[in-house]
């Protein structure tokens, strides 16, 4: 009797399992492998070189040559001429160079295309920059000796990639690679916090994910909290980190102190992309089915829409007025199409087919940067039209995997500059020295009748000025013999060289206007 009823249990179990549909295909597993590690695909393709892990625009606080006068002797040079001023000073490119799981971080000068600095890094690293552009943050999943699986967060000087500080990330994954894309590194817009999403495995097959919060100024880890889901997209705000969960319509809110403080409704199908809209101070999240959500600082829903995103969107990037994402083909991690939308009304603007698959796209200022899978190139495209502006070749056979957007920060140029105020027509010149926020050797004068600053109809007046904010302080003599000063903001257009903080400056080697007496 007992075995007869055990047989009923067994038949029930067997029947339930036999009726299960089985839809897993080798392609699906391969796709999952591609997510877990790029190595599978690259072994299949027998590529000797692998993967640039990420690309990052940073601002370098160094002397910049005037736009369009880059050093032509450098190699490699941009393969296309740049039609407008670049949004930043340099590109930081994270590359994985071989199957031995080592890589390098490369700084590329955006004007000349020259390699400014390189640094060896571990495989599967993640890169981010401080909002001010004066620091690089590098998370290495395991070391350059390929023997240590400990993760390390490094704070680097973006000028020469020297390490300023470092900290270990606790409980890192061991014994196998985490899923690609699950590791993220985000700096809060106010620059106060760094959020590191890590994975670890207390035992084989038991994958855990968590967020480690760092004080951006001091680096040591402040707190770490385990996530109740597999992260699929993250975006840092001043109020914390928003984590989208894979295949789940939930968002986890992690506070700057490292605690899970809320769960919110997220985009349908689970977030596949997230970006910070600096112009509105909102977070933008895109779901796998095209469900777009815009959340304010309190994670309140500001607006939502359904975008036509194709099969599986990815690499969401946002500028001040544009939103773009990659459109993938089924079974592919890379995308070959980019869709551009107006961020204000979410109307489609453009859809561009790429000449080669791209791993990722980021926004920098009003531009987008694409990292191509094959060919080892990074491409700068115009944000309004997706028109290519410049391509940077990084070496044959190198594959790009990701691009990370950081804040536009043009940096402080050095040299002698001349400009003309469109408000009162006066001309002025000043010198900017490296490392100084003061304008020195400031002079102003009334130009000649043609408004040409190379002529003058007044004495040259020596005055003062400061860079932050960019103003000139001009003495004004009153009728009663007294004196006061007038602050003149450096706005307006005088020349066509460098545009900083709304002012266009023309770099000159020397200002020596010819004298024309006042009539």
């Amino acid at each position: 009797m007992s075995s007869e009823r055990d047989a009923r249990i067994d038949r029930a179990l067997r029947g339930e399992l036999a009726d299960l549909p089985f839809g897993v295909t080798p392609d699906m597993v391969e796709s999952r492998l591609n997510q877990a590690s790029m190595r599978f695909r690259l072994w299949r393709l027998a590529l000797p070189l692998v993967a640039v892990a990420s690309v990052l625009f940073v601002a370098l606080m160094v002397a910049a040559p005037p736009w369009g006068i880059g050093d032509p002797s450098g190699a490699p040079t941009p393969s296309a001429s740049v039609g407008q001023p670049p949004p930043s000073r340099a590109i930081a490119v994270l590359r994985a160079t071989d199957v031995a799981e080592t890589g390098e971080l490369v700084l590329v000068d955006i004007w000349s295309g020259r390699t400014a600095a390189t640094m060896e890094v571990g495989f599967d690293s993640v890169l981010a920059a401080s909002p001010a552009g004066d620091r690089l943050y590098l998370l290495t999943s395991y070391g350059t000796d390929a023997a240590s699986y400990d993760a390390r967060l490094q704070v680097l000087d973006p000028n020469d990639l020297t390490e300023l500080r470092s900290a270990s990330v606790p409980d890192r994954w061991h014994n196998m690679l985490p899923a690609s894309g699950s590791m993220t590194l985000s700096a809060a817009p106010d620059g106060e916090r760094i959020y590191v999403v890590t994975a670890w495995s207390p035992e084989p097959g038991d994958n855990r994910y968590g967020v480690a919060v760092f004080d951006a100024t001091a680096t040591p880890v402040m707190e770490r909290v385990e996530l109740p889901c597999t992260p699929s997209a993250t975006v840092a705000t001043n109020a914390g980190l928003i984590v989208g969960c894979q295949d789940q319509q939930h968002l986890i809110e992690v506070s700057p102190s490292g605690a899970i403080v809320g769960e919110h409704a997220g985009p349908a199908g689970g977030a596949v992309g997230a970006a910070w809209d600096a112009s509105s101070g909102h977070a933008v999240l895109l779901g796998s089915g095209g469900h777009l959500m815009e959340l304010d600082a309190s994670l309140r829903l500001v607006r939502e829409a359904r975008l036509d995103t194709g099969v599986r969107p990815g690499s969401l990037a946002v500028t001040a007025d544009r939103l773009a994402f990659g459109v993938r083909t089924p079974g592919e991690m890379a995308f070959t199409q980019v869709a551009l939308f107006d961020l204000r009304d979410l109307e489609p603007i453009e859809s561009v087919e790429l000449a080669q698959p791209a791993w990722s796209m980021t926004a920098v200022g009003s531009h987008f940067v694409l990292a191509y899978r094959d060919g080892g190139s990074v491409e700068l495209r115009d944000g309004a039209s997706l028109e290519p502006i410049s391509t940077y070749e990084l070496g044959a056979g190198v594959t790009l995997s990701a691009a990370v957007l950081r804040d536009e920060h043009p940096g402080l140029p050095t040299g002698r500059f001349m400009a003309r105020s469109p408000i009162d027509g006066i001309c002025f010149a000043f010198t900017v020295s490296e490392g100084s926020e003061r304008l020195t050797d400031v002079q102003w004068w009334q130009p000649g009748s043609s408004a040409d600053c190379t002529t003058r109809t007044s004495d040259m007046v020596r005055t003062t000025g400061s860079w932050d904010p960019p103003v000139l302080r001009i003495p004004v003599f009153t009728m009663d013999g007294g004196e006061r000063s007038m602050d003149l903001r450096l706005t307006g257009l005088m020349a066509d060289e460098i545009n900083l903080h709304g002012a266009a400056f023309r770099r000159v080697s020397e200002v020596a206007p010819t004298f024309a007496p006042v009539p």
Partner: protein
Amino acid sequence: MNASHGRTTLHARLAADLRARRPEAIEELLEAFGREIQGVAYLIVRNHADAEEIVMDTLVTAWGKGQTLRDDTALRSWLLTIASRHALSRRRRSRQWQPLIDAEQLPAPSAHSPSADRVAVAQALDALPAQVRAAIALHHVAGLTVAETAAALDKSQNTIKSQVRDGLARLRATLDVPARPVGGHKVDVERT
């Protein structure tokens, strides 16, 4: 004997392909063990979509850790171990967010239905703790030994015996049958 020898040969070849990371290993493993992994996973997570995800997770893990597999004959139990751990991990993570299912959409069990036993056993299985379901799935259904199951779930053998015994007792109670000791009665999950 021939079937056993053939299986051993197949497993040795699959293990070798896996260790060498030959691309065809994925397809071969999927064909040889995919449905069985799905079955074990489904018994633990009780969700078809999650079970298929676990099949993929299992093969990804196997791909990454293939070189740690020392004994070719342990390939199957090794894969099922990985699958059960993925299933328990997924179950643990998803605990907070169970999908909302309209009770009216669930089929009502019928005493006259030929699948009445299946409905009753399925409901009883749903009510068991995931750890107990894992023990039943690996030992009672997949046929792993108590020692293999204990190693897979990182429990003592006595704990596994107890979990399987108690779990089956609750399933039997659903069918209104008396409990019996843990025995060697195994269910063959469909294999290809």
